[in-house]
């Protein structure tokens, strides 16, 4: 880890749904250009935590700073903050009534206030970066799952976010389409993007992650370099989880 101020600094994040506490005081700080992997059993609160990091979920308690912005402060313009935090979803969530390029252009025009030509150029560049220059004018329904997810990544990176959040970006994809998406993520990392990734792609984690965080029952149980978490985990729960993942 580097010694500079963290770009994401979440402290004591609590979230309850009705009576159920889903996050019980989670801390996470991420340095610039770091890639943090979050793993853990289903229902442990990984998605919920990730969604708190751009306030798609409203935490009940705690503090979250992203790029120096106090995210939970009522004075914060959340929409301005969100464009610095890219998010990629498991189910792509592309807008079905817009072409790939229009999907990317929407926020460029309405949030960044670019004019049509500017936005079209920026969108083309973003789609080129994810290898879809040829498919710009296709509608989501005319694209494969892997291509759709790459458009979704382009939609986020076109806004030049300071950090990117990925929630199981490959788990809705057929196995042969996973590689393309991971390649795009690898390139993003090489370009120095700060990333928080929830995923079960262990090979990718081992190769690309700076740090792996293991969550269970709404808490961060342990964290460390991939080698340590995968080869020599401290907690029994982590060991059991790694064993189970490795089996398939």
């Amino acid at each position, binding site marked *: 880890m580097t010694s500079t101020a963290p770009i994401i600094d979440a402290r004591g994040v609590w979230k309850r749904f009705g009576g159920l506490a889903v996050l019980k005081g989670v801390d996470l700080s991420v340095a610039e250009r770091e890639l943090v992997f979050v793993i853990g059993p289903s229902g442990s609160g990984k998605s919920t935590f990730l969604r708190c990091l751009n306030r798609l979920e409203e935490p009940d308690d705690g503090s979250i700073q992203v790029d120096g912005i106090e995210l939970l402060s009522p004075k914060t313009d959340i929409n301005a903050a969100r464009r610095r935090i890219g998010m990629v979803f498991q189910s792509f969530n592309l807008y079905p009534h817009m072409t790939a390029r229009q999907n990317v252009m929407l*926020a460029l025009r309405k949030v960044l206030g670019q004019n049509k030509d500017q936005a079209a150029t920026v969108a083309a560049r973003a789609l080129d970066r994810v290898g879809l220059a040829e498919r710009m004018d296709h509608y989501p329904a005319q694209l494969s799952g892997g291509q759709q997810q790459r458009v979704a990544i382009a939609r986020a990176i076109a806004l030049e976010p300071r950090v990117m959040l990925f929630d199981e970006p490959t788990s809705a994809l057929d196995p042969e389409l996973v590689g393309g998406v991971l390649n795009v993520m690898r390139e993003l990392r090489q370009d120095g993007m700060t990333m928080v990734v929830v995923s079960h792609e262990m090979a990718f984690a081992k190769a690309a992650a700076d740090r792996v965080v293991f969550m269970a029952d709404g808490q961060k149980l342990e964290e460390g370099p991939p080698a340590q978490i995968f080869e020599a985990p401290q907690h029994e729960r982590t060991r059991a989880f790694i064993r189970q993942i490795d089996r398939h």
Partner: protein
Amino acid sequence: MDGLNNFIFSFFNLKVMAQYLPLVAQGLALTVVLALLIVVCGLALGLLLAVLRSFGIRPLNWLIIFTVDVFRALPPLVIIVLLFFGLPAAGMSVSGFAATWLSLTLVLMAFAEEIFWAGITAVPKGQWEAARSTGLTFLQTLRMVVLPQALRITIPPLTNRTIAITKGTALGSVVGVAEILGAAQSAMSFSANPSPLTLGAIAYLVLFVPVVALGRWIETRFAWKR
């Protein structure tokens, strides 16, 4: 043969028809104006209510739901009669045209709100989240991401409902509006011959058969494609 002649004389009396054609044509024009006013105002109000409802303000939503329920439950003719004969008793008088327009607008508003709202809620939550995560505001998301998708699936039910309600313009004849039916009925009593009524029926067919067919076409075109 006598029966047939009698039938033709009663219902397809060309002389009577020619005489009252202008009257019925005027009725047709009035029906078109009335129908357009109802469609524009009813759909706009319905959309407005559905959008207001999406803000999720509890007491306001209860009010919207109740209003919509009232105008879905009451027969349009009852609303027309209530406005036309009721309001004068309170010192406000409205014309038959205004009473019919207002009543059917409110009825269309109610049905349209319900359909728009169902369409909005049918758009997956992920669409909201994706749009908000790029920094779009609530209203931008509603307008540019959610409504375009919602409107698409609402088109078939909305078309059918709009047709059914605009046909209610004929109810205006009960409160003296000289739309097609009203005009045809006066012509029938002047001429003591029901041919003007046939003319009126033809006018409705000319007006609505294309719309009904359009509705059927839209239904097959939009129903299962997404």
